[in-house]
């Protein structure tokens, strides 16, 4: 991804984190953003997503739903990037430490 594409992706993610949630408020008062909606679904519909028949197609649809939210609700023009897991072992620290936690 180019730097511009990366910026677009991060901005779209931040947009999702600031967009209002759609999960039912009575069941998920903790879901405060559209981003949290996906946590809430995964938390309470784990059976549907994780039985042997549903795992692969369920997660394919789940990531499509997330990408669709980035594109339709946050104006993202690109696609969700892929993580090359097989290269992580070598670049582990570089990749994971570029996003750093700091105390507030």
């Amino acid at each position, binding site marked *: 991804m180019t730097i511009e594409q990366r910026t677009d992706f991060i901005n779209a993610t931040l947009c999702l984190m600031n967009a209002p949630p759609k999960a039912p408020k009575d069941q998920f008062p903790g879901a405060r953003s559209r981003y949290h909606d996906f946590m809430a679904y995964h938390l309470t519909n784990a059976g549907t997503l994780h039985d042997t028949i549903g795992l692969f197609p369920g997660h394919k649809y789940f*990531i499509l*739903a997330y990408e669709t939210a980035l594109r339709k609700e946050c104006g993202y023009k690109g696609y969700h990037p892929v993580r090359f897991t097989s290269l992580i072992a070598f670049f582990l620290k570089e990749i994971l430490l570029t996003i750093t936690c700091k105390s507030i």
Partner: protein
Amino acid sequence: MQRIQPCSMVMRRAWAVTVSRIQSILVCAWVVERLSLPAEVDASPKVLSKSSCFIISQLKDVSQVTNVLISYIATVGPGSPVMNDVPKNPASNGGGYNPRCMRRDVNSEVAKGASAEKVYNLITLSKDIDAFYNTLLTPPVNRSDPYNWGIHSSGHYISGGDPGGDPMVSPGDPIFYFHHVMLDRMWWIWQMQDPDTRVNAQVTLGGGANKNRNIDLKWLIDDKVPILEAHDGLGGYKGAFCHVYV
């Protein structure tokens, strides 16, 4: 992830040809990995920081988003936490407001369970969908392989933590999507080597589940999608699943 529409059967065969190219890329990755894996082993998990929220200020080349504070990235859960100090959720269903900062637990030892060699074997040696499923998720115990806990789990626990290491709320760490897009890509590559028999192949392990049900993601997306349509990464559900991984 790239999508091209529409996907015809002719295109499916054309894209199957790209699989051999993708395989050679993986072999390259495997060689690079062999040559460059650091000799020292970081076996002890390390928590990157104590209670904190994450700031995108270290991405020096992304000038427009520096110093953006994301507060309370995780608010629901935990479900099955792997860290012992995650505060309990106030609601019994885990859906209550439980603001906490994301933490990662980076472990290079775990990463070896998702090596290019394992991925290469997964997509080339799995004869049917059950074999593919088992190798990806729950490989049989192999005492000669100390990293044999499955590519899927290894990918999650490379950075684990909270909420990333919690199977119930792992999508709370953005890395979830990068990881699962890659897993979907592996499935796609495996399917494309023999699309006629592999695209509709359903896992037979476990049994009992309705093989024709709809996938209902409720508040996440409008449509309910038939489960087999979501198998078809080259045009299922009126093209919604038409994507080509490169």
